[in-house]
């Protein structure tokens, strides 16, 4: 890596931006060469400024004239004054040119400031548009976050409910069969058939709950009806297994019981899911 690259780039960028070009020097070189020891002809800058060597030559002439005027005394002072006066005309022109340059420079600065303000207004307009777009995006982000939160909560609810159903089906089958046997006095054959019916009942109930979560539109009312229906069918099936004396005892047991077989669909809903945010609230 070249250690002077920055300066080199700066020079090229300056040339590209300013549009400066080298002055055409060939004719001047030839003129100076053919003049031999002729005074130095400075290159004219593209902007029309006088090169530093011109200024030095002028200063030398003025100083020479001053020295001559001192040496010649009062009489030659008039002549010397003329010599001094001669460069004053270009000096006045130069100062006027300097003033014009200053005014030009001030106008250029004002132009630049005006352009700067226009750019600033445009930048602010773009910023406002960006902020408007950004605020819309924020609303969308908020909606997405809320949607994701609801989905998360729903998934947790489903998980807890299905876990509850798994426990429920095992517990309810055993408790119901035990309570039925105790109150109705089942024979071994009746107990085996009753067990099968109860297995079907809790199996169907769990399937309805799982189906409820799989559905695109969750049908709370339809699921409740199915659960009530399968419960009623199970009750009828169990009753049909019994003789007339046992059926009286069964009816009495169902009337007094708080079991799921007696209460229907409400028992299939967990007591409290997600701190009361229970989508099955309308079941109760």
């Amino acid at each position, binding site marked *: *890596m*070249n*250690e*002077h*690259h920055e*300066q*080199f*780039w*700066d*020079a*090229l*960028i*300056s*040339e*590209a*931006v*300013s*549009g*400066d*070009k*080298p*002055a055409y*020097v*060939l004719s*001047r*070189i030839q003129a*100076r*060469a053919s003049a031999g020891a002729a005074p130095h002809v*400075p*290159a*004219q*800058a*593209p*902007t029309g*400024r006088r*090169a*530093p*060597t011109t200024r030095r030559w002028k200063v030398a002439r003025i100083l020479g004239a001053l020295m001559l005027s001192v040496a010649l005394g009062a009489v030659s002072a008039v002549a010397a004054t003329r010599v001094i006066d001669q460069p004053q005309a270009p000096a006045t022109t130069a100062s006027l040119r300097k003033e014009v340059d200053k005014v030009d*420079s001030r106008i*250029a*600065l004002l132009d*630049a*400031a005006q*352009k*700067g*303000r226009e*750019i*600033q207004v*445009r*930048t602010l307009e773009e910023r406002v548009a960006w902020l408007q777009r950004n605020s819309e995006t924020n609303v969308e982000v908020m909606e997405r976050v809320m949607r994701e939160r609801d989905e998360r909560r729903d998934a947790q609810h489903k998980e807890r409910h299905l876990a509850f159903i798994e426990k429920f089906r095992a517990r309810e089958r055993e408790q119901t069969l035990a309570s039925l046997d105790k109150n109705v006095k089942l024979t071994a054959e009746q107990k085996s058939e009753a067990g099968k019916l109860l297995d079907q009942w809790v199996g169907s109930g769990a399937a309805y709950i799982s189906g409820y979560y799989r559905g695109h539109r969750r049908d709370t009312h339809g699921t409740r009806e199915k659960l009530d229906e399968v419960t009623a069918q199970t009750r009828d099936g169990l009753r049909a297994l019994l003789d007339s004396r046992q059926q009286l005892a069964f009816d009495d047991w169902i009337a007094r019981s708080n079991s799921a077989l007696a209460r229907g669909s409400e028992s299939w809903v967990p007591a409290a899911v997600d701190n009361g945010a229970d989508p099955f609230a309308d079941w109760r």
Partner: protein
Amino acid sequence: MAEGRDFEVLVRTWQTGIWRFLRALGCASAEADDLTQETFLEVLRRPFEQRSEQSTGAYLRLVARHQMLMARRKQGREVGLAEAEGIEERWAEFAGQDEGDSRVEALKECMKSLDEREKLALEMRYKRDSSREEIARALSMSDGGAKNLMERAREKLKRCVELRERKLGTGNE
């Protein structure tokens, strides 16, 4: 050599390259014009044998640098990069065979890719010779902001030129 037609060809061929080299050493445009003229006058006074383009370029840059050193010392000004050892070779390596022509052209094209603020800042700096304070005022920003803006713009231009050179396979470095 350096007589008549040969000398004309020499000046036409190398004038821009020598002027650009002097600008790279830190000369202002008018000073570079003066010193380019002095360089060729020196060559006219003391002819040399042109063996190859490379050696001619190297010799002319050496003379130009010497002219700059002499002029600056006479004026009691800082000599800047002219005193750096081997600066001619470094410039030749940087500028490439076309003496920086393609890079200047590429820079002019790349200027189009700058945004308005960056263009304005560079134009004020290089065209109008405005101070950083003036640029900052015109763009309603702090001095530091103007400095950063110009540095960013310069970096953008360099990257743009280097990318173009890579695409064309004309990189000089």
